[in-house]
């Protein structure tokens, strides 16, 4: 047995191929990268926006700038150095955490309500806007519900495909980037090549498309052959529980 977070992390980790480079935040993205390194992608190069490059993570970092992010790292450098590796096109994946998201993968982590008089203030972009602007493929991992999956984000903090095909390039963003996969507790979504709108790629075991649509505030597409998400393997779960997150900080305490 496994819980939703374990499933999400295992599914996410498989998207990171060996030899790729990925910029990650703390929490589930970092856990997924660590799991990938310990399974199929030992040569996955993990970068942290505050300056840590390719550490041998001894434990889950609490901050993307804490000293675990440079433990036996290949380099301890600056925020600009990491971000500029991304900006010049050397970072394959950005791996971002949960937020309000729309059909084009645009993210809000700034405010709920009107910007000038927000009902709720959130942290803001941090490095998310930079990562999603610069890295070739943005991966998003988040809970799936109608409060998060909305027709229009209250504030467009971090660019997905903006208004659709060609909009990123028209805005001046580096060409060829954009969101790649959204991994939730219900399904894995990709983006339609022609419309840039979110579509179901695979349904988690036991889920129907209708259930996913019901929890989504905009109209979802689906690929021609929606598959069932391959559940976590025994090996993945063991490594995740024993080596990646033994204290259950992210996957929950057992």
């Amino acid at each position, binding site marked *: 047995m496994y819980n939703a977070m374990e499933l999400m992390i295992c599914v996410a980790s498989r998207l990171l191929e060996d030899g790729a480079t990925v910029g990650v935040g703390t929490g589930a993205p970092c856990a997924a990268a660590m799991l990938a390194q310990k399974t199929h992608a030992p040569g996955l190069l993990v970068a942290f926006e505050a300056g840590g490059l390719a550490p041998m993570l001894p434990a889950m970092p609490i901050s*993307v700038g804490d000293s675990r992010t440079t433990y036996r790292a290949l380099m301890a450098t600056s925020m600009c150095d990491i971000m500029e590796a991304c900006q010049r096109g050397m970072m394959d994946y950005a791996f971002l955490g949960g937020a309000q998201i729309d059909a084009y993968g645009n993210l809000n982590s700034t405010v709920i309500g009107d910007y000038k008089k927000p009902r*709720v203030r959130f942290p803001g972009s941090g490095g998310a806007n930079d990562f999603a602007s610069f890295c070739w493929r943005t991966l998003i991992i988040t809970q799936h519900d109608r409060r998060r999956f909305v027709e229009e984000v209250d504030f467009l903090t971090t660019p997905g495909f903006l208004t659709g095909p060609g909009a990123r390039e028209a805005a001046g963003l580096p060409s060829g980037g954009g969101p790649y996969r959204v991994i939730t507790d219900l399904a894995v979504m990709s983006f339609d090549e022609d419309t840039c709108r979110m579509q179901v790629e695979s349904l988690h075991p036991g889920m129907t498309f209708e259930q996913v649509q019901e929890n989504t505030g905009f109209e979802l597409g689906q690929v021609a052959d929606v598959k069932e998400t391959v559940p976590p393997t025994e090996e993945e779960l063991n490594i995740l529980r024993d080596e990646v997150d033994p204290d259950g900080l992210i996957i929950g305490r057992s």
Partner: protein
Amino acid sequence: MTSSENTGRGPLFTDPDPDVARAFFREKKGALTDKLMSVSDAVARFVHDGDYVASGGFGGNRIATALLHEVVRQERTNLGFAGHTTTHDFQILAAGTRTGKQIFSRLDAAYILGLEARGLSAQARRLMESGEVEVCEWTNYALACRFRAAATGVPFVPVRSMLGTDTFRESAAKEIECPFTGKSLMAVPALYPDVALIHVHESDLFGNCRIRGITVADWDLSRASKHVIVSAERIVSTDEIRSDPNATAIPAFCVDAVCHVPYGSYPGNMAGEYFSDEVHLKAWLDAERDVEAYRAFLDKYLYGVDCFESYLEICGGEERLAELRRLENN
């Protein structure tokens, strides 16, 4: 969508004119004079009401906690503040003064309120939702580049993020056209803080500093700021600095004051020295939820403390600090 606009509507709190900054820097002399002073003297001399302040490190890592506490205790108000991933540093200033005044009223925000994996600060949220702080939005990289532009001595640098987003709309950046490629770029204006508060591993009396681990944006921040107060885990001789010129991160001519503060980043993490005190940070976060409990917490840990050494003492003193050293270096 905002891609048709070409200027963010956020407020620009500081003057990006490099000639204004140059006129200031020209008068900044005395690289090789003794700048060692107490934390209270340094803050008294170099942080003034209305100043624009920037905090080094990364929110809860290598932050100048002792200097930040002192800014609160000396009741500075009406400050501007720069926050690229400002977490516990933000939380300290967000406490306000003992008499209930706000410390800062202008904020360049990239990442605020949160303490990353630890959760959100209730007090920071109350402050930011009060409407009492004027805010301008940025990204972490854009804000770092604003320091970079200032350190470089130019009024802006171009970046390729923020484009097409509301983050841009609420910023003070300007969209420009590249003269070589015709592409849209985001020009982010130089940010010259009045004063930077930076904690380092080692400094000599003149302010030649060494940093271990990530430098975040402090290379640029120390050069961009009109005044720099450094707090250091250790004071070393200039001979020692000269024995390894590659290790110097901040040259003395950028620095105005040097304070000797062992454990000066506590409860933050100091690379190679001590890990963050997650127990104390959690207590701080928890206390913020209840206004009464929070006031008592601040009286005990901040307002009622005479100096940083006393704070360390009531947080567990040598025993706790030794534990955090073990945690960092195991």
